[in-house]
């Protein structure tokens, strides 16, 4: 008999399992437990845990909040399209809009300080991909996601879009500066 024929013993479920198989199953179960525990343990001991704080919002409401934030803390503009560069005080609620095909505005943050970053799309799905730190977060329309971020090194960071969002998807790049 083979795997292509019915089991040779009618009551096959009573046949004892070989020792080699049992050893492997034991190892696999232990490894499964370790894999499972790593996630809660990282919530306790790790520094990188994604917040789940989320609010329903609408494009109008979110744009109003972002505009107020930009009006309050803009320090200069950049690029052909006069993108505001916004430098909020540490600990502040900061806003970024994902839209076809911009990350708006540009942020200027301080190293080692924490900020409450609000993310929301006002049209389709977008992907917040912070490079070269390589942090990647899905951004959805209708969901205002609030996460606390703490930049750990100074420099010029790019926010690229890594969720396909139409014909200019590859041009959707924003910026975050981290200064001393």
């Amino acid at each position, binding site marked *: *008999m*083979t*795997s*292509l*024929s*019915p089991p*040779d013993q009618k009551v*096959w*479920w009573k*046949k004892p*399992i*070989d020792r*080699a*198989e049992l050893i492997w*199953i034991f*190892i*696999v179960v232990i*490894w*499964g437990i370790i*894999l499972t525990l*790593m*996630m*809660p343990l*990282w*919530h306790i001991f790790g520094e*990188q*845990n*994604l*917040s*789940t704080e989320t609010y329903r919002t609408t494009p109008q409401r979110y744009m109003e909040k972002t505009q107020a934030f930009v009006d309050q803390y803009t320090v200069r503009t950049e690029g*052909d399209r006069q993108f505001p560069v916004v430098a909020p005080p540490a600990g502040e609620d900061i806003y970024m809009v994902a839209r076809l095909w911009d990350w708006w505005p540009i942020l200027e943050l301080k190293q080692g300080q924490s900020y409450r970053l609000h993310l929301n799309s006002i049209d*389709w*799905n977008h*992907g917040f*991909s912070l*490079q070269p*730190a*390589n*942090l*990647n*977060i*899905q*951004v*959805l329309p*209708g*969901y205002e996601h609030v*996460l606390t*971020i*703490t*930049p*750990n090194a100074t420099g010029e960071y*790019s926010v690229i879009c*890594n*969720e396909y969002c*139409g*014909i200019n*998807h*590859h041009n*959707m*790049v924003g910026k975050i500066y981290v200064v001393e």
Partner: protein
Amino acid sequence: MTNNAIFRTCPDTGLRFHGPAETLIKLNAVAAVVFLLVGGIMGIGVGLTRWPEVHLLGPQDFYTTLTSHGINVLIFWIIFFEIAALYFVSSVVLGCRLATPKLGYLAFLLMVIGALVNNYAVWSLSSAVMMTSYAPMPAHWAFYLGLILFAVGALIGCFIFLGTLVIAKKEKTYEGSIPLVTFGGLTACIIAIFTIASGAIILVPTLLWQLGYVSNIDAGVYRLIWWAFGHSSQQINVATHVTVWYMVGALVFGAKPLSEKVSRFAFVLYIAVLQIASAHHLLVDPGVGTEWKIFNTSYAMYLAVMASMVHGLTVPGSMEAAQRARGYTNGLFEWLRKAPWGNPVFSSTMISIVGFGFLGGISGVMMGAEQLNLIVHNTLYVPGHFHATVVLGTTLAFMGITYWLVPVLFRRELILTSWCKWQPYIFGLGMTGVSVFMMGAGTLGLPRRHWDAAFTSSSFPYEFPSSAMALMSLNGLSVVLAAIGGGMFCLIIVGTLLFGKKVGQEEKFPRVMVATPPTEAQYVTLHRSGNAISGTLLLAGVFLIAFVVYYFINWKYLAETWGMS
């Protein structure tokens, strides 16, 4: 009704083929290869555009080609083949007539029409929305309609499979429990029904939304339910290709399961936990909670991973036991050295097992950990991972069994036999390159589904490390190699159908199509020796070490990025 339908007994395998079942298996398998060819050609376009020095297509063509590539290979090639496989492991393996063959033709027709409508929408009705078609990005309604028609056809196929099991039981064409491969097919069928139901729950409202009857599709809910369809369909693939692995073990070595109980229970675990499969796609989404993510991404407690790790031991283990029982007992690996490496049925399967486990499995568990997903989500790591699972794992396993099925079904000798020997290695090596280099580039942050990672026309261009770009060039080369391997496969199969030397219905092939199983006495002697699967156990140990090391390296990598809470 069709009780006196025609059967033929295959002189090589002793299997009984029911005429209409055989026709339907042929139709579905041929359609599968056609869509593999179409989708594969699209894949070349994608690979050559991502090759920085080549950058073949413009943005519109690239996004359309990528959409078409994903749908044609991931959905149409694989599901057509799975329907063929379901008919085979029910009607042929159980030697019984296929239930309602007429509905089988209807199912096939619906699937063909659905596939054509969907392709037409992608190419001519500007629906380059990627396979996932995330609402609220709109596609033409024909895009969703095509998918729904295809799914209805596949669903009918599933019920025909179940009906056939009922007939076999009633007409007593077998005794005791169904064979393991049929059990694996049953697993795939149950998962498929769940999958298609989830697809309907999300695609029907989306279709109505495009037709104007529904005002709004929530982006988060769409992703949640779409992935119950999108990921569960990958569980169909896994269940089916594991079934094919066991089947190849039986055909090439006359292998039997080490333990029916263990192998079947592992299949049941796939069913038990599949409904939580959408979670690991939503690990960095807003709107879902931490506990929900942890419980669901781990499939309760990595139960599906455990199942695959068990199959990963028992499939090669059953081959080893059969080989050792037959007398290849020297050392740890004589059984493996003396395996028929020139037989594409076997070599494809072995590459499939190793590629699926080492590349696909380990990377999948890594990126399915809640926090680790932050460093890979939507990067090229994701397609790197699933080219290991779906192409090295599923597609290569299906290619391997096709080398066996085509002669048996069509009674023709394979043509280009020396190509047959090399094809699995060329395709396997190319696809290994595709997987590894995309995963490498993804680790460095390169985005998936992206036309221009050099950002030449962006207002604020970003420059990736040159090593990432170099990896994409290597990826391009690997795509060429894989395309050669895939092209060879299509040529061999289509060529065999047209020009292969005919072998009569009563005549036998010169080579052995089904190995004679070892005798019970040989197995008894083997088990007394106490090391029935020692070689496989060692390989499993190597796998486990690679798994553990790679997993923790990524936690270290995560620890180096920005703090978040």
